């Protein structure tokens, strides 16, 4: 690997930019490819840039055959992120579970009595209002957003911000009735139906979960399903 390629790869990874290192296994030629933009793709078959994008979305390194020989696409995605709105009981289970599954977890709750280090040891906490917190976090394709407060003042701004982002998973806790009212409010706020359908509500796979920890399992399972099956 050339030192210039290596240094750029390391810079991208530090900056948390999703990047693919493409390597022609016959000629040794190499380049870095990104989700957007044609930078790096010059001189490479169009097919390579497209396959690189698919590999990033699937988070799976792979080799493709081209006219110039086999090209290995090594995927370097930044860590998954999960933004949890509400420092509630379920969050106390969800945060450590999601961390085990590879997520950088942040819990957002302006109510300081809820979001405390004692209740959330080792978890990144934000006391900002959800709209400010979401603007700061800037959810991307590798981000899951979960709202758990049941309080429209806190959940709604976070959901609106999530809908305007590329977040791969948006889950909102609440009964079917609560969720219907929530969708009505977001509809009034101008979100079209196909965007509202991105919200999983009530959040979580239907596995009969009852305890906070079981509900956390169902939410993490649903996020995993969205993450791993969307590109399949």
């Amino acid at each position: 690997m050339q030192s210039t390629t290596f240094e750029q790869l390391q810079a991208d990874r530090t900056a948390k930019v999703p990047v693919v290192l493409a390597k022609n296994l016959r000629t040794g030629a190499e380049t870095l490819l990104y989700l957007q933009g044609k930078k790096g793709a010059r001189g490479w078959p169009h097919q390579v840039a497209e396959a690189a994008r698919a590999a990033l979305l699937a988070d799976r390194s792979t080799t493709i055959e081209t006219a110039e020989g086999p090209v290995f696409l090594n995927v370097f995605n930044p860590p998954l992120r999960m933004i949890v709105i509400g420092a509630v009981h379920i969050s106390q289970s969800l945060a450590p579970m999601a961390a085990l599954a590879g997520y950088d977890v942040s819990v957002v709750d302006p109510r300081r009595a809820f979001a405390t280090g004692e209740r959330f040891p080792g978890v990144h906490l934000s006391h900002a209002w959800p709209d400010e917190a979401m603007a700061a976090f800037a959810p991307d394709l590798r981000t899951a957003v979960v709202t758990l407060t049941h309080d429209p003042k806190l959940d709604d701004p976070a959901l609106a911000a999530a809908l305007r982002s590329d977040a791969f998973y948006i889950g909102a806790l609440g009964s079917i009735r609560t969720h219907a009212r929530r969708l009505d409010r977001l509809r009034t706020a101008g979100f079209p139906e196909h965007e509202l359908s991105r919200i999983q509500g009530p959040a979580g796979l239907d596995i009969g979960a009852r305890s906070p920890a079981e509900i956390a399992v169902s939410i993490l399972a649903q996020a995993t399903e969205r993450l791993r099956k969307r590109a399949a």
Partner: protein
Amino acid sequence: MTSAQNPDVLQQAGQWRREGRGVAIATVVTTWGSAPRPVGSQLAITEDGAFVGSVSGGCIEGAVVQEAVDTIHDGKPRMLDFGVTDDQAWEVGLACGGKIQVYVERLD
């Protein structure tokens, strides 16, 4: 999955390189069957045989390190094939019965 294990491997490779040591990087490029580490897993190796990371559960690292040292000296990338065959099953085969292909290149 690339995100979890690679940072330290490449960081260490860069650190070694800055210290002026010869470095090679080995990457799993293909797997068949129940290979122990996914495609994209990496190992960084120095010319004196130090290494970080993994390309298997420990079954083939020794063999990869030897080839990597040669790659550091002659600069030629190598493609290594590992799998369970009769004559190498107890040498550098994979206990899990899988097969993997490892690409070794020098970090210039």
